[in-house]
């Protein structure tokens, strides 16, 4: 009898393709199942943040205004008198939040602190890396957009901040590398999310370009090391 009998083929196939039976392999409509998805772009659940705990306890010098102003928070203390080493990392920690009012206060609070911080921001940059990394690791689209805009603001908020971020590219850029391709090719259609600054691919490219412009001489090579597909803008 031929060695290519049914029993021998069955042994060969099952040893080579343990997840596929011989009958499946031999049938014309058989499809070999691939590996399971890794979930690199799957959103992770957010943990309870320190920002939420401090906000509920009333430790933040912010007051809620119910008089119809939608995008402003009122500060009980002048921002110039705040301890940035204490408050700025806490507000950055709130970037992981997605629920109102935590998300609003974190986003607007970070914006106000960066806008009026001046030279108080640079010494605090190393303490901001872990909150930024936690926010990016959530892989939540909305959190990603907010965090990228915050990073862009941080880079231009004060002098030398861009260069201070260069040693931390290996913490921040891997996530950007995963989502860098998320851009939509509509041909001649209008991409409204780009207009509203919610297109992740475009936001990542803008952020990387700001890193390169404000990061000094070593910025480009460090970005290229982490994201090989990035092209220089200078």
């Amino acid at each position, binding site marked *: 009898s031929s060695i290519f009998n049914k029993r021998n083929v069955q042994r060969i196939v099952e040893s080579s393709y343990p997840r596929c039976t011989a009958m499946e392999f031999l049938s014309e409509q058989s499809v070999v199942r691939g590996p399971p998805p890794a979930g690199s772009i799957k959103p992770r659940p957010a943990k309870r943040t320190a920002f939420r705990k401090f906000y509920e306890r009333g430790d933040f010098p912010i007051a809620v205004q119910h008089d119809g102003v939608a995008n402003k928070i009122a500060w*009980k203390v002048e921002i110039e008198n705040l301890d940035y080493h204490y408050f700025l990392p806490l507000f950055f920690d709130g970037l992981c939040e997605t629920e109102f009012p935590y998300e609003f206060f974190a986003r607007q609070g970070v914006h106000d602190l960066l806008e009026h911080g001046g030279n108080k921001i640079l010494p605090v940059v190393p303490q901001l890396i872990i909150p930024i990394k936690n926010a990016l690791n959530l892989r939540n689209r909305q959190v990603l957009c907010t965090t990228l805009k915050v990073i862009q603001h941080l880079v231009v908020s004060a002098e030398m901040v861009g260069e201070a971020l260069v040693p931390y590219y290996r913490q921040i850029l891997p996530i950007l590398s995963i989502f860098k391709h998320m851009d939509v090719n509509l041909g001649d259609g209008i991409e409204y999310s780009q207009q509203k600054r919610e297109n992740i691919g475009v936001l990542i490219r803008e952020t990387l370009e700001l890193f390169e412009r404000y990061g000094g001489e070593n910025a480009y090579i460090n970005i290229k090391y982490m994201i090989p597909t990035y092209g220089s803008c200078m």
Partner: protein
Amino acid sequence: MVTHKVPDLPTCLEEKHSLGESSTSCKEELNTNDTKMSKVSEVVTKADIKPKSMHRAKIWSDDVENLYRFQQAGYRDEVEYKQVKQVDEVECWPETGFVKKLQRRDNTFYYYNRQRECEDKDVPKVKVYVY
């Protein structure tokens, strides 16, 4: 900054204003009591200044932007803010001249951006007072 028609001040107040801004020799002649009295009279007189009319803004401009920021903080305009808070100057961004920080009536602070905040849809909501 906000420009508006200021009514003609009485001459005595003008003299007191000019004395307050004059050379040091004039200041040395004034007693502290006199300066306090002049400041009190200035406050009393400024409190009496009320706008004669109001209309809504139609086109955005730097003045409209500043009026928008004052009205967001709960004031009519710069005149009322200086009157209520007893300050001489309002903190502004040096690059654009827009209002940077305001203190509300409940003593909380509002901070504003360097760039324009008043959108086109909010321009008709801005009240422009004429004195």
